[in-house]
């Protein structure tokens, strides 16, 4: 490891190294003292650069032992247990985490994103410019990069990729959204790509760092979508697909001539691991037992009830909240009950998020905004999400909702009942049900299958939706709430739409942060969102596994991972 410069204006490389190490350390600290308050953990996160410097200088600290004294070992196949079949390995088509965890290793992106600050940094594009109106993005490609079939990663290949994603349409469920409004792609020379959007589109820079816009060889893009899903994929990433058996395993093999890691990587050249063997193990108890008995090295889907086992065995646990929209209730405002703003506000005030915090994983936080704390441009809105039982009751009283004989309020013969159909595992909703009952709102929970939930949503005859959305850019707010986008509330245009629109065009960091913060406040004040809890991806590893970490979207990055003794 290089000695780090003591001044805060160090070179890009020194900063990224320290950033990486401090990220690793802050995670370790979280593991050692899981009971630390959220604020302290968040504060530690903000002090990352300082932490990295301190850790690099003071001998004898726990992090020093972990990341400095041990020299990475080359070789070895990492056995990773995932909970579900990835279904489709193509990162451009995939949407679920288990698939994206694989896709990230086989494709590279134009840019990368620092997990700690959200800053966009070089990867396959060594630099870029964004026009003042944030409509034109020019990327200058790093020369000498090839796909594993030998074809060059040049401007033409990038163009073919992005056009291909648009052609995939709904199949590229994430990427096609990021590229929406793309007017044209020009390739003035071999290493320059110019994308022009019809509207300002600030989020595209972050999108260019995701595996959903990861690059595949033109040969792969010529194949049909189904064949690509089965692993007939050629990317420029540090690993290539060797085999894929559904419901069984995915085997990746290291690319020996790989030499273009992201500027965030902890080392140069090829990956340390000679391969990754992903096993699909649906039962959480089997994953836990297999990790404890040394039959796997990494469990990517640790359930809250198994966390104590790992802590007791002192096995490393890597946890990071998913950036983006937190798990929330999204009211359908065409509904006769939830169309009333006072009901939505009473709902929000009746939620006791501190109490909910007690029944979820201790790596998980309750919501402190519409956005998770790891989302770039996040600001704390906890004061707008305070528990106020009396206030909630008063709002409903004032609006004429009177408690009936069973304690559930009603008005003009209409009972205050909210039906929620969902498919996720979220036991804390039962606590929420109890909390709402205390103010006279009857939350009827119907846990069902994803097909039934999506069928109900398609009919439009639902009262609330419940989900989270992972995205390491605050533009997710615009995508979900804006009237001219997904318009999750089915509402008419309001002042918040102007704010969301402005935020999608604002290049200045502070001004954008301000717009986002104002938008979050309005969304909460209007009751368009009732934020509940953050999602955290909890991963446990064997003691021999080093250098595994989450990238900015909280998916796994194995490039710096190595197996020690």
């Amino acid at each position: 490891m290089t000695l780090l410069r003591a001044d805060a204006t160090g070179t890009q490389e020194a900063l990224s190294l320290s950033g990486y190490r401090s990220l690793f350390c802050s995670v370790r600290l979280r593991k050692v003292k899981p009971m630390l308050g959220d604020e302290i953990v968040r504060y530690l996160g903000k002090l990352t650069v300082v932490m990295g410097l301190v850790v690099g200088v003071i001998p004898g600290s726990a992090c020093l032992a972990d990341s400095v004294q041990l020299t990475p070992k080359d070789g070895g196949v990492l056995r990773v247990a995932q909970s579900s079949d990835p279904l489709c390995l193509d990162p451009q088509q995939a949407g679920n985490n288990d698939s994206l965890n694989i896709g990230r290793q086989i494709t590279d992106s134009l840019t990368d994103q620092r997990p700690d600050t959200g800053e966009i940094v070089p990867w396959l594009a060594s630099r870029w410019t964004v026009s003042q109106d944030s409509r034109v993005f020019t990327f200058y490609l790093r020369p000498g990069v090839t796909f594993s079939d030998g074809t060059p990663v040049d401007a033409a290949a990038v163009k073919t990729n992005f056009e291909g994603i648009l052609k995939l349409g709904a199949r590229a469920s994430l990427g096609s959204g990021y590229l929406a409004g793309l007017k044209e792609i020009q390739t003035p020379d071999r290493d320059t790509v110019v994308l022009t959007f019809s509207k300002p589109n600030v989020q595209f820079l972050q999108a260019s760092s995701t595996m959903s816009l990861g690059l595949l060889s033109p040969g792969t893009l010529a194949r049909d979508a189904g064949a690509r899903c089965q692993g007939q994929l050629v990317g420029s990433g540090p690993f290539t697909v060797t085999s894929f058996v559904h419901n069984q395993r995915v085997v990746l093999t290291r690319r020996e001539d790989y030499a273009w890691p992201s500027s965030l990587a902890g080392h140069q050249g090829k990956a340390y691991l000679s391969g990754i063997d992903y096993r699909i193990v649906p039962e959480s108890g089997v994953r836990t037992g297999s990790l404890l008995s040394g039959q796997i090295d990494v469990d990517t889907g640790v359930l809250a009830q198994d966390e104590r086992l790992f802590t007791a065995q002192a096995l490393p646990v890597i946890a990071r909240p998913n950036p983006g929209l937190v798990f929330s209730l999204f009211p359908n405002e065409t509904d006769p009950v939830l169309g009333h703003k006072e009901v939505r506000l009473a709902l929000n005030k009746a939620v006791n998020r501190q109490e909910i915090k007690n029944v979820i994983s201790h790596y998980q936080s309750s919501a402190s905004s519409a956005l998770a704390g790891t989302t770039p441009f996040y600001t704390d809105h906890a004061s707008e999400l305070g528990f106020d039982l009396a206030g909630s009751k008063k709002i409903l009283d004032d609006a004429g909702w009177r408690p009936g004989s069973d304690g559930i309020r009603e008005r003009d013969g209409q009972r205050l009942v909210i039906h929620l159909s969902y498919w996720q595992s979220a036991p804390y909703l039962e606590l929420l049900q109890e909390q709402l009952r205390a103010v006279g709102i009857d939350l009827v929970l119907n846990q069902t299958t994803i097909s039934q939930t999506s069928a109900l949503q398609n009919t439009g005859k639902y009262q609330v939706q419940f989900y989270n959305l992972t995205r390491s850019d605050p533009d997710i707010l615009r995508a979900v709430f804006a009237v001219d986008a997904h318009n999750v509330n089915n509402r008419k245009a309001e002042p918040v739409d102007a704010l969301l629109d402005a935020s999608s065009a604002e290049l200045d960091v502070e001004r954008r942060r301000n717009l986002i913060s104002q938008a979050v406040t309005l969304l909460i004040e209007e009751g368009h969102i009732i934020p509940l809890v953050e999602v955290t991806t909890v991963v446990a590893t064997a003691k021999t596994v080093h250098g595994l970490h989450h990238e900015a979207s909280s998916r796994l990055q194995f490039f710096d991972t190595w197996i020690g003794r």
Partner: protein
Amino acid sequence: MSRPSSGLSIRHLLRRDVLLYVAARVGQSALVLWAAFTLSFAILYVLPGDPVSIMVNQDGQSLVDGAELAKLKAEYNLDKPITEQYFIALWRVLHLDFGRSIQSGQTVASALANAIPPTANLAFCALVVALIMGVGLAVLGCLVQAPWLRTLLLALPSLGAALPTFWIGLLFLQVLSFHFTIFPAMGNDGWRSLVMPVATLAIPTSARIAQVMSRSLALVWSQPFTEAIRAKGVSRTHLMLVHTLPNAAIPLLTMAGLIVGGLLAGSVVTETVFSRDGIGRLAQGAVSAKDIPMVQGVVLVVAASFVVVNLIVDLLYPLLDPRITLSGKRR
């Protein structure tokens, strides 16, 4: 026509009435397959939700707009009226084109080709083990003379049938894989990975076999002919293995279809607990995603295996028991 039935012979299988019988049964089988296909199509249609929405909405992480979704639905003919969808699907299946899985994009034929061998392997091994354990237990229960031991042996099948497969599997894993690391906890690699799944699947199956066999053995054992044979001085074991067992096995053969069905149903749980690839996992994933082409492929394969097993059983009856004939006429 009064030729006595002559044990197991090839000539028996080539007789004209047998061939006619087989032809009629093949016709019937086609009807059964068609009914299974139609019924599963109807059930999937009644289930709420459409597979394309589920496919693009993996983990609920996408915001695909309605127009793009409609395009994809049209690609899978899901925008057409139900009857038209049905006839398109039926026409394809008649041409042995099972289509592509909506969920994963692989062809249903290749998914089935990958999933059938591991399940067949698992089910066959479990059947052999279950037969040995089930029949062995019934025979022991019949031969043992100490009343307490007999009661104990005859109580075992009820216990075996009552234990949930899921729990047995986890127990095996806990002891033999996590604690003693004798067998691998997951995968389809080699015989070692087959031991625990086979045992897990064999226990409930053997319990069912033992229940039927012990009742049937007790019945045959009390028939007058056994007395006659014993009077000749034949040992109890010899009497059991040579004279009683073959006679008592007929009800077991009748159960063959049920046993195969039980094995296939048990494979869903067994394959999940032991993280194995196979028909059970394929079916479970396809049904929960309403993946119509895949579910129909699985249904047809399972229905075909039932039909084949029952056909084999029916052909074997006359060979084992001369009192049973294929044509229904007494000879």
